[in-house]
């Protein structure tokens, strides 16, 4: 049986959208995918016309799609942005050196200036040397901390106003859950913040980092790359098998298989922690009018459930009599 797109009702559907469960055809998907990212950018006032933006590019799927979509939207909607590619060479043989080739290809395709900074030149340590020194425990912590700072330094050298990264909805949900599992209550409410580093805390403002893919599912990014035939690098980092994130990732993928909205639900929960909706009030404690025991409504949940069960029983008896 041919299933049709639930957006245009004329074309054959080719995928199920994880966020909504809707069936969609290829053209409507490309349109919706790009429109939703545009909407995220506009509704959060992510950019101002004339700004210089560094796209953090690893050559992986997320940043490859990010370069493609931002270049496209910048032209289509006249954002007036000056775009640059910024890559970090962590110094991991057979991994990063290969993925940087993909970034160089992107540079040619989209005609953007590319800056590559290496851990070796910035810190005098490559990740190969770090792992030789400390082994395969906590090495991702070193790499993450160094990358963060490398991106800041690269952005300053390029003289840009902001950095954008390809973090997607699944990444956001992972970070939130990781902070929850670690009991990191200070980081928890900001786990899924779409713009970070611009708060000027203590008079120290760093370069803002923005995440245009905050609400974009990983599945859709991979689908988009696949059908647009974008070339990206996909090899697991040689040094990441013990990372805590990997286990949380597994957990979220399993949750998503059971209930695809779980990813966006986690992001929603985090946003509510950060800025709770003041209009929502907890129900008042009271006594149930039927059983006189604790309830948050006039009639307690147990009485309501019993009521519906008893009604069903009555209906069944009627059916038998009929």
């Amino acid at each position, binding site marked *: 049986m041919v299933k049709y797109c639930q957006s245009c009702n004329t074309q054959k559907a080719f995928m199920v959208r994880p966020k909504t469960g809707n069936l969609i055809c290829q053209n409507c998907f490309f349109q919706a995918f790009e429109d939703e990212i545009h909407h995220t950018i506009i509704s959060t006032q992510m950019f101002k016309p004339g700004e210089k933006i560094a796209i953090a590019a690893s050559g992986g799927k997320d940043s490859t799609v990010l370069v493609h979509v931002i270049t496209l939207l910048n032209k289509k909607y006249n954002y007036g942005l000056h775009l640059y590619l910024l890559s970090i060479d962590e110094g991991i043989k057979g991994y990063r050196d290969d*993925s940087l080739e993909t970034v160089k290809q992107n540079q040619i395709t989209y005609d953007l200036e590319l800056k590559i900074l290496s851990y070796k030149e910035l810190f005098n340590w490559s990740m190969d040397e770090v792992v030789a020194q400390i082994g395969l425990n906590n090495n991702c912590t070193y790499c993450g901390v160094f990358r963060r700072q490398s991106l800041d330094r690269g952005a300053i050298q390029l003289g840009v106003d902001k950095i954008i990264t390809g973090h997607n909805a699944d990444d956001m949900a992972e970070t939130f859950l990781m902070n929850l599992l670690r009991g990191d209550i200070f980081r928890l409410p900001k786990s899924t913040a779409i713009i970070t580093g611009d708060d000027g805390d203590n008079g120290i403002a760093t370069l803002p980092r923005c995440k245009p893919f905050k609400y974009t599912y990983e599945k859709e990014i991979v689908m988009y790359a696949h059908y647009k035939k974008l070339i990206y690098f996909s090899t*697991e980092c040689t040094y990441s098998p013990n990372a805590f994130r990997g286990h949380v990732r597994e957990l979220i993928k399993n949750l998503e298989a059971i209930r695809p909205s779980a990813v966006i639900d986690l992001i929603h929960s985090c946003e509510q922690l950060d800025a709770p909706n003041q209009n929502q009030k907890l129900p008042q404690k009271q006594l149930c009018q039927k059983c006189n025991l604790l309830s948050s409504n006039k009639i307690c949940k147990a009485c309501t459930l019993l009521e519906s069960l008893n009604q069903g029983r009555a209906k069944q008896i009627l059916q038998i009599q009929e």
Partner: protein
Amino acid sequence: MKIIVDFGGGLDICFENKKELTLEFEEQQIKMTDLITRLKTLCNPKKLDFFYTQQLRPGILVLINDADWELEDKEEAQLQHNDRVSFISTLHGG
């Protein structure tokens, strides 16, 4: 019947770095679950990217003739001669 399988997102490392396989089946019609069972016998048991605790790892996108298998009944989807099935990992890199 013949089924063509291809691997994306780095999954070829589980199948001797082959990006594409052509598999022959005696039956005239098989289900996706039969194909997955066959792939289990071909997958490098040391690589956990494709199968994980005997299951197809969540986070792998499956396309039957370039359409999401979630449109069909996933494991129960029927395959015919010359169908192409793509497995694409979403798990690596950013």
